């Protein structure tokens, strides 16, 4: 995907970084199924936003196998992320959920047993910033405000990038709109069940995210066309104007809904506008706001705008200069989705330092290491291990940056990100110590079902047929 984009640039290698970063600002919105947004003519309940802020996947079809009812992984070195490591441990997964974790577990004799052979076992990796499986449709770069874009509409569930990340231990990804626009589009959260049909890959119940951007990319895209924004002044003004329009649209609907509630038979529903509706939903707090942002001053401006309009920012993405204002980001409860050590690909990446993730973390910021790339998502474990070297993250802190912390950024930390009872059976069995360059996933389970097994011939996939 990035390759195809960069072919238009003279110096592909260098520009890959730029384009990655450009693409990488996606607005994530977990998809909101169309049926969740009632039309204004239905019933008396006014509706301007999805009734439920969760991503619902359709009922699994025949191609989506039900997870095995009982699975036990035994003889494992469990790295739970939340409660330490357990040597010679076992996990019992019942109906796709972790039912027991410990030295010993009580499982029925009929359970499928996977002997980990003493290997390291971690939760599945969560990538909180990805643009895979979206073909060239990452950026609707025709307007700086496109919150009505739904990445679901571009989701190519057959993209082998989903498989390659799975083979690197990734089980959940947030697929975001790119960073061309100040307000991009609505993301989806997927599970890497490669070989399953489309809707089975959508993370059921994941909250919707929306992608914002700032800085050089919107400037470059629209300034290059002789349009607003071509400056950071333009960037933020475009953003404020859009949010103001969303505020007015929301008021119109609030007024209408109030009239309906009062029994006013003459109340006339405002005309629906998908763009304004999405903006209003941002103000209603329906979205986790994921902002691509680099420079120290821009974090502060984004925070100020969020205060002005009354929404919360979930995470700053890339956030290369976040170490300069980490205390302020921490005070807002905003997360950071970072690169481990990328830098220098553009002016606003010039002050990037590899100590940033740990410096932020020490100031109380919840930090994730993410890929923003169909390359790095294949070895996020190595990227996380860099935080041990740069700043001295502990093993558990490093692991948390690719599991529980990104799960929080995506809004699914109650479902995945650690080996805890009740969580999804998303599990990686590693060939070696996972926080090193030597580790390769041997098996990857999602919802208690093996989706990748390195020992198998061919692609190592269990739910995929050649030519599918």
């Amino acid at each position, binding site marked *: 995907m990035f390759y195809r984009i960069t072919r238009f640039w003279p110096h592909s*290698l*260098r520009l890959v970084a730029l384009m990655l970063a450009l693409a990488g600002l996606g607005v994530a919105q977990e998809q909101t199924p169309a049926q969740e947004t009632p039309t204004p003519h239905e019933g008396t309940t006014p509706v301007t936003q999805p009734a439920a802020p969760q991503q619902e996947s359709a009922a699994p079809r025949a191609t989506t196998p039900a997870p095995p009812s009982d699975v036990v992984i035994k003889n494992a070195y469990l790295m739970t992320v939340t409660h330490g490591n357990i040597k010679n441990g076992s996990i019992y997964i019942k109906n796709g959920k972790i039912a027991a974790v410990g030295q010993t577990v009580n499982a029925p004799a009929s359970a499928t047993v996977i002997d980990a052979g003493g290997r390291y076992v971690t939760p599945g990796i969560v990538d909180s910033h990805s643009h895979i499986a979206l073909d060239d449709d990452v950026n609707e770069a025709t307007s700086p405000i496109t919150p009505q874009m739904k990445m679901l509409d571009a989701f190519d569930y057959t993209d082998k990038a989903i498989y390659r990340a799975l083979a690197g231990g990734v089980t959940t990804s947030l697929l975001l709109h790119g960073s061309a626009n100040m307000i991009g589009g609505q993301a989806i959260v997927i599970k890497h069940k490669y070989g399953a049909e489309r809707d089975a890959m959508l993370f059921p119940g994941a909250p919707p995210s929306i992608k914002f951007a700032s800085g050089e990319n919107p400037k470059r895209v629209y300034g290059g066309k002789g349009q607003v924004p071509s400056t950071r002044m333009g960037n933020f003004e475009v953003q404020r104007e859009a949010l103001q329009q969303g505020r007015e649209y929301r008021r119109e609907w609030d007024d209408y809904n109030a009239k309906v509630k009062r029994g006013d038979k003459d109340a006339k529903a405002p005309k629906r506008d998908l763009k304004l509706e999405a903006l209003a939903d941002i103000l209603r707090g329906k979205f986790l706001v994921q902002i691509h942002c680099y420079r120290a001053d821009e974090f502060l401006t984004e925070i100020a705008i969020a205060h002005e309009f009354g929404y919360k920012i979930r995470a700053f993405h890339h956030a290369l200069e976040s170490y300069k204002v980490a205390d302020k980001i921490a005070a807002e409860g905003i997360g950071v989705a970072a690169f481990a050590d990328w830098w220098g*690909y553009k002016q606003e990446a010039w002050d990037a330092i590899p100590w940033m993730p740990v410096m932020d973390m020490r100031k109380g910021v919840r930090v994730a290491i993410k890929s923003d790339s169909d390359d790095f998502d294949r070895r996020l474990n190595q990227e996380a291990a860099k935080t041990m070297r740069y700043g001295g993250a502990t093993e558990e802190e490093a692991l948390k940056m690719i599991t529980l912390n990104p799960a929080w950024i995506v809004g699914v930390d109650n479902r995945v990100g650690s080996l805890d009872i009740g969580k999804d059976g998303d599990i990686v069995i590693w060939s070696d110590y996972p*926080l090193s360059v030597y580790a390769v996933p041997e098996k990857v389970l999602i919802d208690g079902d093996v989706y990748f097994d390195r020992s198998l011939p061919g692609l190592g996939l269990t739910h995929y047929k050649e030519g599918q």
Partner: protein
Amino acid sequence: MRKHSAFTRQHSAFSRQHSVLLLLLLLFGIAATSVAQQTPTRTKKIKDGQPAHMRTAAPASQVAAPVIALRGGTLLTVSHGTIKDGTLVIENGKIAAVGPASSVSIPKGAQVIDATGMTIYPGLIDSESNLGLTEISAEQMTNDLVEDSDEIMPHMHVYDAFHAESALIPVTRVNGVTNAIVAPDSSDTLPGQDSFIQLAGASATEMLMIRDIAMPFNFTGKERRNETWEKRKFPQTRMGMAAQLRQAFLDAQDYAQKWDDYNKKKESKAPADGDKDKKNEPPTPPKRDLKLEALLPYLQGKKPIVLAAEQSNDLETAVNLAHEFNLKFVLNHVSHSQSVLDYIASLKVPVIVGPIYEKPKPEERFDAVYSLPAQLYKRGVKIAFASYDAHQVRNLPYQAGFAVAFGLPHDEALKAITLNAAEIWGVADRLGSLDVGKTANVVVANGDPLDVKADVKHVFIEGREIPLTDRQTRLRDEYSK
């Protein structure tokens, strides 16, 4: 008028003479029979002048390199195994002793560094980078990566652009990379000529160890001028690329022939056939052509081309072209040539493999590229790794480490970024292993050099300790207060 003409003639004669000298030098003098033979002479010149030293250090002429002993570490010699509890002595910028601590005596007055628990290994060598050619990728004014107005640009020399003060260089060397090939970006079939650098020195002159060491010959299909249907121009296809390359080398052969003819005439001092008017005048030399001239050392097999291909079909086309013109070559990338690994081995040339992170083709298994280094090694191919990058050259050792996860022996992985690279680039007499007499480019880390967790604690280049500071450490320190 006459006067002026006379002057012009005189001037031309001088130029001609000068040109001839240059060409003779080029044909017979500068380039020895191989890179390996040629390089020592050239670097010696540089070293005899002013030894390379840290820009921030005092001038080398004023401060002699200290005698340093690294005591008690694990020595990864690369050339003769691992020595636990070893000692390495650095003197006059060279490795003076290597061995078990029990048998190496530390010279009096030496600065002793306790390396207990540490790993000591040779400075790492990146076999292709763009260091010194770019600062901020998206800022075009900071880029001197490639002339892409034409595809055949062998007369571009990266040393003319190499920016010794680049902030990227300290960032790179603090992770133990001490030497690198600097190559132009790969968007042309013949984008110019590489230089071999050392990552410390007071100026570009000191850092550029070997100029024009090799020439990239790119044949991956990405060099086609087919960005869009509207912008397409020749060569829009691989046929076009091959035809253009072939013509370029034919033109260079023709050019060489013209100079040969001229030189023969000149030596014979015989008048041209019956031309009495020109009896006493030397023959007219051909017009010099820098582009064609640049191809001559490669046509003559004096220097290697770095033949880049990814797919097997491109590889075979490009190798055939190289054979057609008797070009000496090393292979580069071969990322999607898994079906012809035995053929590659049969070529008996080294391979710069990767990057290991190159994505497999959609139909390929996830590890099709990850396992390539091991597959080539098993077939007896000498391999090296390259960052193909500028900002992230520091991550070079992790490519080697990742190859270990897919079957490459650990010592071979380290060799691929030290001794193998030194051999490929003809500097193994000075670099690539911990051996007495070699240049003291030595790194000390607190762990496995191929793993991301290892923290580099000391870097020595020509025996001088490099401060482990760079733009990034300064920002870290400033914001950690």
